[in-house]
Structure formats: C-alpha cells, structure tokens
C-alpha cells in the first residue's frame, strides 16, 4: 500500500529535519575537536540520512541560488558575489571555505539551517567543482550559473579537459532557458559550450590591448578551432588561453562580450582599476586574473539588479578569501600568501609577483595530495623562468619540494635546499628574507593549508574558519 501525499510530505520533512540535525551535530563536533572547520563532513552525514537534503534546503531560499564553476577564480568570485549581496542587505549562504564538491555545498546549507530544518536565507552562492556541476545544478536548480574558464588542471583526478568541458556542457544544456547563464567569451572552450546553447548566454570578456600579451604561453590548452581543427589566431592573450581569438578559416571566433572590462590599470598584488559597463572600479585585489573575477561578479550583480555605483563603492573595501591572497606580518617581514594550483594560475601569480610587485623572495610549495592532484608533471608547464634574474631567494617546499628543486634548476633559477616540512621551510624563508622585505608564498591547495596551519600554530594567522 502506498502512503498518502500528505503522509509522504510529513515523512520527507521529518527526514530533512533529522538530516539537518545530524549534519549540524557533526559540524559542531568537528570544530570542537579541532579537526578543521567542519566544511564537508556534515554534508556527508546529512546526505546519507536524506539524499534530497540539498534540493530541499535550496528550495527554502527566498530568491534562489547562484552557482559558480571554472578552473580558476571560483572562491574569489563567489566571495565577491556574496559580499555584494550582503552589502545590499541580503542574507547569503555559501560554501566559502573552498569546499566545492556537492558535500561542501550541502554542509554550507546545513550550517545556516535552523534546527527545525528550515534554511532561512535569501540567496545561496555556491562555488562548484567543474566535475560536480551536473549533479549540483540538478539539485540546487540555480537562477544563475557562471562559467569562469577552463584550464588544464589535475588530469589525474578529472581526466582530460575535454571530458570536463562535456560535463559543463551537459549541465548547462539540462537547465531551463529562463535560468541565466553567464560565460567567459575570452575562453575558447567555454565559448564553444555557450555557442551550442539554445539561448544566447550573457558573455563577458576583457577589452584592453595594453595588458595583453600577443603570444600564447606554453601551458595553453584550447588552441584549435572546434569546427575545422585549424590553430586559432590570437590577437590578444590575457590569462592562459583566454583572450581575443579567431579561426583562420572564419569557422569560429570569440563571441562579442556584452560586459567588458577596459582601461585596466594593475598595481601589483595591491589593487587594480578598470572600467566595467561605464563604471570606474578600484578593487583591492591584484593580478589580471582578479580583473576577470571582478568582471564576472559584476555581471552577476547587474543581472540581480544591483546598481553600478553601489557595486563600485562596496568593492573598494573587499578582501580576498583565506590563502587566496592573504597578507601576514612576521618579525618585520611581509608575507603574501597566494594560492597557485595549475599552470594558468601559477603563470599569472608569478607574473604579478615578479613584474608588478617586483618580488625578490619566494617560497613555492607543491603538494601532491588528492586535492592538489597526485600528478605533479604540470610544474613543467609553469614558466618558472620568469624568476630568473629577479628572485634572490627561492625556497622549494611541500611534499614534492624535490621535484620543484629540479624544475627550478632547469629554469636556471638558483634555489635553496628543498624543505618538505612546512615549519622548516618557513624558518628558512624568514632567515633568508631581509627585514622589511616582502616574501611571496605561492602554494598548491593543501600546501597552503599546511603552511597556514603552521602560521596559525605560531600565532601569525587566524584559523581559516574564522576568516
């Protein structure tokens, strides 16, 4: 015998409440035992009790959700969007610690849910790992989906770029036409996805030759025309393979963006200025990759109805997420912690540190845990040659410090002895860096967590769930 609809509803609600309570208890326990911020485990527990928990919680949101995906910039962009919404008086739930699998998104929603099981918030802002996107949009049913870029990243975990692109394609195709899709026109693989959609997405892109290179870096991936296979011609290259491109046989070209950033002025890791949609912005974030993040967040904010002058005013005081670009002080040295996890990201942080910030002191930390990618061969696609002649201190660190030391040797960059232990690596960096100087710490994801844990232990930084 089947149960009546109302009985089913009651059962479903009871299951939701039980899942929320169990998830919340797990989170509290995880934080109390100092096993970390409880950023994903509560999600596991709650989903085991109620597999539909994320869909149910997302349906509680007053206005709906925004989902952000792409290889680089998810965390910063999600944080920018939340920050803009919060400043406009909205209550936002988001997976802000970079826990971007479906469990992380679930845990974030749980964290904000009342013990009765209801999620009381206006907007959900979720950064979602590219491979998890189909499942995430199916469960969350976002109002807006933002695709930032598609770079080579962690092939051991995800497989080839092409299979990731297919996942994103599949996710966007399954969404209703009225759901807003905001895509990066400058990324050839993202553009290919967008051009295949039944409705034209909202395209964004950079438009400033003064900050562009004219040649592709070695690490570029998408350089052939999806229609005829010819090598694409780039008239401007901004980050990785993102730029202004066209096929020599006129089979494919960058879609004309409706939202552009122009007149870009970069000032090291400190700030940049740009004109987006006729609005002059000054944002305390460094590097051209952050111009993309701000442009994307601006596009989202505008489609949510926020005013340009409000966005500009609010962004003046933005601060990046933990470890994304974090400033710490120790014994007169300024430490600049920057997450750098794949060739495209690494090349940009190196360029910013060397060319714009005139950095001379570096710690480069490479781990090969699951979250970093167990295959470290990508370091050979990073242009560490940029450090040649300008860096006076380079400390190779992390579980694969020895591989980095070899990479630096073949780049012609003199390096210190490799240090696997984060504490010893920091000690060496401090010893070799002059008082008053800035040291740039470029690290992969778990290497950044290790270094930060060491900095917290020494009292130089706050735990990440407090940032």
């Amino acid at each position, binding site marked *: 015998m089947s149960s009546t609809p109302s009985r089913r509803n009651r059962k479903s609600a009871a299951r939701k409440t039980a899942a929320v309570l169990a998830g919340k208890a797990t989170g509290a326990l995880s934080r109390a035992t100092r096993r970390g911020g409880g950023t994903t485990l509560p999600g596991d527990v709650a989903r085991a009790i109620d597999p539909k928990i994320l869909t149910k919680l997302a349906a509680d949101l007053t206005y709906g959700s925004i989902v952000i995906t792409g290889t680089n910039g998810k965390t910063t962009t999600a944080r920018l969007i939340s920050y803009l919404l919060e400043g406009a008086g909205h209550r936002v739930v988001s997976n802000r610690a970079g826990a971007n699998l479906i469990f992380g998104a679930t845990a974030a929603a749980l964290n904000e849910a009342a013990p009765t099981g209801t999620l009381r918030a206006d907007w959900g802002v979720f950064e979602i790992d590219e491979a998890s996107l189909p499942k995430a949009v199916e469960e969350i049913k976002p109002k807006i989906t933002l695709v930032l870029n598609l770079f080579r990243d962690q092939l051991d975990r995800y*497989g080839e*770029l092409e299979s990731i692109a297919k996942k994103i394609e599949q996710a966007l195709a399954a969404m209703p036409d009225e759901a807003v899709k905001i895509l990066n026109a400058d990324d050839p693989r993202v553009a290919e996805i967008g051009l295949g959609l039944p409705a034209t997405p909202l395209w964004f892109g950079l438009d400033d030759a003064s900050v562009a290179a004219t040649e592709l870096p070695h690490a570029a991936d998408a350089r052939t025309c999806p229609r005829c296979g010819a090598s694409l011609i780039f008239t401007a290259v901004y980050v990785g393979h993102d730029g202004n491109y066209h096929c020599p046989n006129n089979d494919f070209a960058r879609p004309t963006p409706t939202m552009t950033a122009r007149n870009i002025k970069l000032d090291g890791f400190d700030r940049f200025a740009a004109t987006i949609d006729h609005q002059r912005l000054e944002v305390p974030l460094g590097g051209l990759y952050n111009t993309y993040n701000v442009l994307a967040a601006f596009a989202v904010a505008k489609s949510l109805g926020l005013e340009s002058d409000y966005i500009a005013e609010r962004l003046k005081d933005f601060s990046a997420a933990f470890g994304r670009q974090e400033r710490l002080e120790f014994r007169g040295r300024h430490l600049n912690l920057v997450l750098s996890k794949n060739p495209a990201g690494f090349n940009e942080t190196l360029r910013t540190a060397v060319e714009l910030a005139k950095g001379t002191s570096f710690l480069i930390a490479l781990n090969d845990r699951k979250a970093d990618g167990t295959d470290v061969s990508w370091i*050979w696609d990073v242009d560490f040659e940029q450090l040649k002649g300008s860096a006076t201190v380079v400390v190779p660190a992390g579980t694969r410090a020895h591989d980095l030391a070899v990479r630096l040797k073949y780049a012609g960059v003199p390096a210190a002895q490799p240090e696997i232990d984060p504490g010893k690596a920091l000690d060496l960096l401090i010893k070799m860096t002059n008082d008053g100087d800035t040291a740039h710490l470029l690290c992969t994801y778990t290497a950044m967590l290790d270094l930060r844990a060491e900095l917290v232990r020494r009292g130089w930084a706050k735990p990440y769930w407090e940032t």
Partner: protein
Amino acid sequence: MNTTKMPRSSHTFTVGWLYPDLMNIYGDRGNILTLLKRAEWRGYEAKLVELGRGTVNQMDEVDVFFFGGGQDREQALVYEDLLEFKQPPLERAVNSGAGVLAVCGGYQLLGHYYQTAEGERFPGIGMIDVRTEAGKKRFIGDVVVDADIDTLNPKTLVGFENHSGRTFLGPKARPLGKVRLGNGNNGSDKTEGCLQGTVLGTYLHGSLLPKNPHLADYLIRSALIRRGVDELSPLDDAVEMAAHERILQRAQHQHR
C-alpha cells in the same frame, strides 16, 4: 684529412618536438628542457626544432625526436598529419641513427594500431612492433621500473602513468623494463615501455627525463654515437637524483 666533410657542426645537438602545440598534455616540456639543458651544460649548442602540423623543416638535422601525449581531439588531428607529412622523414632520420622518445599517446601512434572498446581500429604508423587496445580502468599513479638497459646506472626509472590503453609488444620490440610499482604497458605482463632500435616508447611522464637524468643521457649518447661521441662528460645530478630517490622511498610504502 677530411674535416670539411664533418656532418654539420659536431657541436650542435638538436631536439625535434613533434606537435608541441597539440601533444603536450603532461608537462612534456620537462623532457625537452632536460635534453636541451644537459647537452648545453656539456658545451653543445642545443637547438630545438618545433614540428607542428604541415612542416617537415630540418627533420634530417634532428638528433632526438620527442613525441608526447595529447587529448583525443588533438590526437586525431595529429594522426592525419603524421601520415601525410612526417612519417617518411621520421623513418629516414631513425634509419640513420636519430633517437625517438615517445610518451603515452605518441607511443601508441608509433605502433601498429589503437583499438577502441567498440573494436574500431585506428592505425598507427607501425614504426615500432606494438599494438594497443582500450582498457576499462584507467591506470593512474606513481610508477617505478627496473630498466633493462645495460649501460644505465642506476637501473631504476621513476615516473607517473595516466592511461587507459593496454599496449602489447611484438617480437621486434623489447620491454624497457619491468614494473616494481604501477601498471606499465598493460597491467598484466609487468612490462613497461619498449625499445626498438633507437626508438624508446613509454607510458611514464611526470615528467620522465628530469627525474631520470641517466635516461636522458642514454638518449643523448645513443643519438650522438653516429657522430663519433662515445662518452658524455659527467654532470652534477644531486638535485635530480634526490627527487628520484624520494619516489623510490615512497614506493616502498605504496601498493597499487
């Protein structure tokens, strides 16, 4: 005296990179850099020739060719060009003693064929006596090989594999070595890679040569024998071998 008849300059060492823009997926630049730098550090004028689609320029000057892996989409583009342009000059160069290092997709394309799970066969150029079939499970992880090359010291090779192809050797090819850790050619016969004349095929990247400088030197020396070079001057490989050692140490605690 016939010093004027010396082939080119005896002091250049040329690496030919097949399809640098399309077949470069797993940090293959590390292999190129290692070959070039190690020749340069020994006083050779190291030269890189990029062999993209449609070009065969300077292929007869190349000492060692490198052919890396690519994504399926790119591999299909490369195959046509390989048949149309590169195969004849490549075979000529190899017959005159030039070396080839082929990794993953490049390794498969030099063999007889690649057979998909559905039984469809994509022919290779048959330069080496190997054939590849699609496998269900992808082999991903660290690999340690005991190499079967007499002059190699140490005998171990370390790298990272990431492939679903299962490669089997015919009688003309012999294995590069036996896997101590990892799956190698096919996961069933414990072999990894192949050697056939001066062609070396392998699934190891990571990149392969930076952490195996002795194998890089083996390739350089093998290609220079035809120019009367017997021995390469020794280099300080402490940094490279420390990275090699780290993988060996870890391998003692890994089971795959």
